[in-house]
């Protein structure tokens, strides 16, 4: 396995965050660190943009194809915008004296380490390297979820740690089984773990072994995607960690876990004698959709509410990929992108809302559009977008999922629509009180403290994401359209 050289953009994409993680671990000043964090995220994003012009040849270690190039760019972009939001968020948290400078040094270092593991998992051309990267991603996020050191945060981190460790343990067993299936055909060594080679030769692998492997992979990586009934870690981890981490968990980590699952699905699908992976994924998708849709009604904590909404959307996406075929895959890919952008925007606004209100409890937050109109309306738009109201991008992709299902399996479309409507109503009901209810009589002392540059900083990423989602909803650029179609074809 040779390490790619410096003329390869992938080297930079991975080296920048890794080096930054080391640098930020020793940088004592948190204000400087938060800006360094933004700068290196920008550099990573720039390096990922180079991939569109110059796509390196696949090596045994790393590769780029149509599928992962867009996820790498999306990951680098959300990594950048979250770093900007995080700079503002951290400034306000430190003012409120909730975090010490030691914690922050650790936080920034882990943030870059997390981005590194995500990008490595996406670009790895080896099932084992990808597994190690996902495992390391779990570790870094566990550390960030426990940042506040409160009893709840530690419980959340512990639960996340134990459940996801077992999950990725099972994923490793699945990975070993895929290697065993490939080994008689492709010989010993790294060839039998390379994605680029596995897909080409999958037709001659032993189908039974692949079936067994897929079950383990689905349960293993499915735990990390947050598919019900394996989702128990997800709401806690989203609710108790710092809000920028909730944004990247929902926006990036779930996508990467799903990406791993889809890569394995591509191998399984390339073998004509295996069980169809579709029905299993459809089943998991439905269970996630319904469990979360009903759970949304009982939530009292604003971050938990949107964590359950993430489970719902991951369910819809898994369902779409389970349906398969060009249109449903297209819809799934688009929904993955739209959900990442919108959900991180939602968490950006929720982060400021909870800081202003000094609480995460939904019934203590009300009248946002009156007390802080700019933030309040941004919150309303973001929530309506994630609920799937036109003209935003989430509506478009959900519409595509529903219409493609109607065209092929009308009976499956009925529960899908019921689930989507249930979730939609729950979010609208919660939004009503928070946005338009009577403003609180005794505002929290922190209210209105943030002014100037930190407010602009905190709002920019949110508006940028919402603008992108709006544009995608009204008019999907033809380049993107062609591209999604090409990838949808690859997924089979």
């Amino acid at each position, binding site marked *: 396995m040779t390490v790619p050289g410096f003329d390869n953009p992938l080297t930079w994409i991975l080296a920048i965050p890794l080096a930054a993680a080391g640098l930020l671990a020793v940088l004592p000043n948190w204000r400087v660190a938060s800006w360094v964090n933004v700068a290196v995220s920008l550099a990573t994003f720039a390096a990922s943009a180079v991939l569109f012009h110059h796509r390196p040849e696949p090596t045994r270690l790393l590769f780029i194809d149509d599928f992962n190039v867009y996820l790498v760019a999306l990951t680098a972009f959300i990594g950048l915008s979250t770093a900007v939001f995080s700079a503002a968020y951290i400034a306000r948290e430190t003012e409120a004296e909730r975090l010490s400078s030691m914690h922050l040094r650790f936080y920034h270092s882990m943030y870059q380490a997390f981005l590194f593991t995500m990008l490595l998992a996406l670009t790895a051309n*080896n099932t*084992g*390297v990808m*597994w*190690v990267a996902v*495992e*390391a991603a779990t*570790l870094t996020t*566990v550390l960030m979820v*426990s940042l506040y050191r409160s*009893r*709840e945060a*530690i*419980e959340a*981190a*512990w*639960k996340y*740690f*134990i459940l996801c*460790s*077992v999950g990725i*343990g*099972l994923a*490793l*067993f699945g990975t*070993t*089984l895929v*290697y*065993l299936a490939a*080994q*008689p055909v492709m*010989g*010993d*060594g*790294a060839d*039998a*773990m390379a994605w680029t080679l596995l897909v080409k030769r999958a037709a001659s692998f*032993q189908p*039974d*072994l692949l*079936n*067994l492997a897929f079950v383990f992979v689905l349960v293993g990586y499915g735990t990390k995607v947050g598919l019900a009934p394996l989702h128990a870690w997800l709401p806690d981890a989203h*609710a*108790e960690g710092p809000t920028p981490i909730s944004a990247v968990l929902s926006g990036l980590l779930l996508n990467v876990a799903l990406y791993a699952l889809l890569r394995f699905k591509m191998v399984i699908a390339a073998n004509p004698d295996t069980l169809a992976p579709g029905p299993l994924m459809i089943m998991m998708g439905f269970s996630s959709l319904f469990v979360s849709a009903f759970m949304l009604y*009982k*939530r*009292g*904590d604003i971050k*938990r509410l949107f964590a359950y909404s993430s489970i719902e959307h991951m369910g819809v996406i898994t369902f779409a990929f389970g349906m398969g075929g060009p249109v449903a895959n297209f819809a799934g890919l688009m929904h993955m992108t739209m959900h990442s952008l919108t959900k991180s925007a939602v968490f950006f606004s929720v982060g400021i809302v909870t800081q202003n209100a000094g609480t*995460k*409890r939904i019934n203590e937050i009300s009248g946002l559009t009156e007390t802080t109109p700019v933030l309040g309306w941004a919150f309303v738009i973001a929530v309506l977008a994630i609920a799937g109201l036109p003209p935003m991008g989430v509506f478009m992709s959900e519409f595509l999922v529903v219409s493609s299902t109607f065209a092929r399996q009308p009976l499956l479309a009925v529960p899908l629509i019921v689930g989507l409507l249930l979730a939609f109503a729950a979010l609208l009901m919660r939004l009503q009180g928070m946005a338009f209810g009577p403003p609180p009589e005794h505002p929290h002392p922190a209210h209105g403290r943030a002014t100037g540059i930190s407010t602009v900083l905190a709002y920019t990423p949110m508006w940028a994401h919402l603008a992108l989602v709006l544009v995608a909803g009204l008019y999907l650029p033809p380049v993107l359209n062609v591209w999604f179609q090409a990838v949808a074809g690859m997924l089979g």
Partner: protein
Amino acid sequence: MLQALSYDLAHLIGATVLMAGFGLLYQRRLFAVLNTFSFQALALAAAAAWQAHVQHAPHLYFTAGIALVFKAMIVPFALHWLVERLGIHRTVETALSIGWTMIIGVALVALSILLVLPVTAKAAALTRESLALAMSVVLLGMLMMITRRNAVTQVVGFMALENGLILAAVSAKGMPLVVEISVAFSVLVAMTLFGIFFFRIRERFDSLDLNYIETFRGDRQ
């Protein structure tokens, strides 16, 4: 002749790992659990070393070394120290009686053999049965995590599960990255131990105490 010997010895060691997996299920004292785990890790080290010898894969000696030094010695010692230091309850608290746990364990082993043997008909015989053993060890580890209530026994269950995974990985002929994977797991385990110590986690969190759950879901007043 030599083929048959290497085959038999690999199965003997694999079966020892599995027996230790059962041993973990019926211990009633925490220190006995730790000793049994140490024994299992020792058997795993032997399995990895034997595979390194049979497959002419010297890197597997590293995996064996990690299992021997880290899992069979450092981790049990560290856990021993933690139990004393944190004053953790010394008897194993079960969520399901030991008899039932053993019956379920036997069923899980039967399940893995019935599942793995038919689907690996074309794979090398050496790999086939080791894989069935490894899958049994993984499932027994999961069973232990589910049926034991204390944080330490839960972690031991996870490490037993992981022993099964490493057993599978070393038995897969020529599988790359096995050393990296065992290092990654060791980091994970070290982090867990650190977490237990640092946050003084004595119990696992899904307590049966209702009051406790009410405040901790963060969803009710």
